[in-house]
């Protein structure tokens, strides 16, 4: 019922609906072409300055280095495992202040947790699940660069099959690099009972921000799991961040979807999926699948899994 209502109310329809107000200043210590800070800049365009950004250790640690900050919003830094607990503390404080009439209801703030995939999918998962369990009213931007980038690109739970990281270097014994399938954070959140869960990409800003705008009506935990290109970690030229994200979506590797109260819907279905090879081959972290000899088996396996996903999902949608 709610899902249907939300579908009707598409709010950000074209690129011209994206506000030109900025809430993230340039000058932060992010690499050239960082997809993660772009994702934060985009989501804050809609959440605005009446927001507290709660951040755990990762590349965003350097978003605020005394005496500088990139944010117009407030910022709270927590230990890596407990950004959602930090969010709970702020929510409680605001609720008490409102109840005691120390601040007015319309002075309330949005609470936006921003962490990388390492915090979101492994080190901080416990505090996340319990925050969902308590139905904490907060936003979570999990920028997923698919490794512990701040410490030099070690594998995380969301590192994809076949990717090289500094802890899963391809060798003759282990030619794939990463051998595991990534954890499906979207499904973890859905099954934990979060009322709004979305996957997004900064290469599709209209899809991304339309989801944010519509999710404003939902109280409770809201996840935006964002595949965020990382030039040094994925080993490609900084100019290609948007293109890499586009290839991920058009090849079907990264599905853009949302789950409203558990009802899953794809918000963008590529008409004709391009081969996954197009996505893999422009990134150095997959170079070993192409050189010195092409690992056809591995590439086909990745393709097969993507095809299977869409076959299942699209069948279900009909």
């Amino acid at each position, binding site marked *: 019922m709610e899902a249907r209502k939300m579908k009707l109310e598409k709010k950000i329809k074209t*690129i*011209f609906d*994206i506000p*030109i107000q*900025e*809430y*993230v*200043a*340039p*000058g*932060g*210590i*992010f*690499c*050239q*072409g*960082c*997809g993660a*800070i*772009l994702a934060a*800049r*985009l989501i804050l365009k809609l959440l605005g*300055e009446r927001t507290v950004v709660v951040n755990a250790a990762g*590349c965003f*640690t*350097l978003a*605020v280095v*005394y*005496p*500088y*900050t*990139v*944010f*117009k*919003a407030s*910022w709270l830094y927590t230990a890596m495992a407990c950004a959602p607990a930090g969010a709970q503390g702020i929510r409680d404080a605001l609720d008490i202040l409102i109840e005691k009439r120390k601040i007015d209801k319309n002075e309330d703030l949005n609470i936006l947790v921003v962490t990388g995939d390492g915090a979101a999918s492994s080190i901080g998962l416990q505090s996340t699940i319990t925050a969902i369990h308590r139905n904490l009213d907060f936003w979570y931007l999990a920028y997923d660069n698919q490794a512990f*980038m*701040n*410490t*030099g690109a070690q594998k995380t739970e969301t590192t994809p099959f076949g990717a090289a990281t500094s802890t899963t*270097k391809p060798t003759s014994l282990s030619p794939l690099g990463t051998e595991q399938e990534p954890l499906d954070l979207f499904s973890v959140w859905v099954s934990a009972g979060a009322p709004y869960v979305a996957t997004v990409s*900064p290469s599709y*800003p209209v899809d991304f921000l339309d989801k944010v705008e519509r999710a404003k009506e939902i109280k409770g935990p809201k996840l935006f799991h964002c595949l965020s290109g990382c*030039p*040094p970690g994925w080993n490609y*030229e*900084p*100019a*290609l*961040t*948007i*293109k890499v994200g586009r290839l991920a979506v058009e090849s079907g590797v990264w599905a853009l979807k949302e789950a409203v109260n558990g009802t899953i819907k794809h918000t963008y279905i590529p008409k004709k999926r391009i081969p996954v090879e197009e996505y893999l081959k422009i990134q150095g972290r997959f170079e070993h699948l192409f*050189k010195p000899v092409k690992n056809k088996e591995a590439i086909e396996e990745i393709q097969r899994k993507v095809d299977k996903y869409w076959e299942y999902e699209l069948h279900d949608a009909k």
Partner: protein
Amino acid sequence: MIKVRFHGRGGQGMKTSSRILGTAAFLSGFFVQDFPIYGAERRGAPVVAFTIISKEPILERGYIFDPNILLISDETLLLDKQTDPTKGMSKESIVFINSNKNEDYFKEKIGAKVIVEDLTKIALEVLGRPILSTLIAGVAAKLVGIEQKYLEEAVKEELEQIGANEEMIRKNILAATIGYNKVQEVKIEQTESLEPEVKVVEVEYNDPEISTPVISFVANSYLKKTGTWRVFKPIIKYQKCKSCRLCYVYCPESAIKWENNFPVIDYENCKGCLICVQECPLKAIEIVREGE
């Protein structure tokens, strides 16, 4: 003992330079230490690395505060007050700067022996990317007087370790040799640092309300002017622009402002990622090398 300090930006490869110099000196029979300052690994962010070379065992540990040789891979670092790359040098220190400006430009400002070469240009020609690790290592090896064969061996060893393929290793040995032949060996004068001795200051206990850093400003990071990170500069050709907004929306860090229905690049802060150039559907944004 020779103390060499490398200053660069993340992604240029200064950590590798210090390692190559260390390995080359080790292969030549010296005692060596090489290490970077541990920090977040960020493309573009200031990076410092060190190499100490000695005929005797090296007993000291820690950063180099009084370098004999300074290698600065990015002249814009000279403007960075936090990094302050010439800190601790003496009149006898030798300062190498990678720049497309000439030596006189820096001599007055720095007041030491300055050597300037445009290594970025060579890197773009030889490696196709502005990565300076092997070029700078070549310069450093020559300055301290290491034989070329040890330099080449060290380049190979270090690059193999970080997983470079044969072609990259070949190109980088070439780059190292070019760097090596650009400069002359120098006489290293042993001098004391001009810096006053560092005093240990005891910090008293303070209530967290006082001692926790609080930033009361908002969005003031633009003051850091990351425009100095650029190697290439995007230039919008307004005759071609149709105000589609794509460059504006995709610029990662709001270095493009939207004014009077047109995009305007804030050059004080644009890092030169070139996403805008790549994404403009009308090819209305052109590229020039910075400083040209």
